[in-house]
């Protein structure tokens, strides 16, 4: 079981900030495929991965990051701090 978090327009498209996800995926890309298969709002949110960033256990990561031992995955658009 993973905590999956969404921020900014990813949160708005999916319609919630956070959910518990039961997954068979071994990496972030696999998790995304499972989520996209659920419902249109997920498919829409994940339709362009170049517009998305991911953090694994609160560190920025790549889409091929493994999920073994991971507790929290977050998806969001490119950051606009400062």
């Amino acid at each position, binding site marked *: 079981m993973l905590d999956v*978090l969404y*921020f*900014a*327009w990813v*949160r708005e498209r999916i319609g919630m900030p956070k959910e518990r996800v039961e997954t068979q995926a071994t990496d972030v890309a696999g998790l995304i495929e499972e989520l996209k298969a659920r419902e249109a709002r997920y498919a829409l949110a994940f339709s362009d991965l170049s517009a998305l960033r991911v*953090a694994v256990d*609160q*560190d*920025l990561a790549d889409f091929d990051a493994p999920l073994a031992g991971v507790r*929290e995955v*977050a998806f*969001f*658009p*490119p*950051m*606009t*701090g*400062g």
Partner: protein
Amino acid sequence: MRIRVQNAAFDIGAELAEFSNVRPEIGAIVSFTGMVRDSEGRLDHMEIEHYPAMTERAITAIAEEANTRWSLGDVLVIHRFGRLQPGEAIMMVATAAPHRANAFAAAEFLMDYLKSRAPFWKKEVTRDGAAWVAARDVDEAALSRWRD
């Protein structure tokens, strides 16, 4: 090293004044303040979302990197989240070093990383609706100058 992530407004002048009480080997202090812009007079307010569990860690890592690269005497980073009005300060960075070159470089480095690597997202709410601020290519490109 002083890192603060907060909803509350802060007093730019008081922060700089306090930061400038430095050790005697410090000759140079640089500050950067980012303000809520309203270039077309249409902004009602700005909403800043962040990722609480990650924000302070990410900023601390960036500040430690700056500290190591430029042997700073001190570093300050304040970044707000929540609802902000036009003209309010969003965030502030300050660096202290013996000479100006290091203080300037460290402040620019911090800003480049905070822009694109700290988990904040800005939404502008105008009378015509709300829109997430898009990341600028120029901000991503700015990071390349710090890679060895």
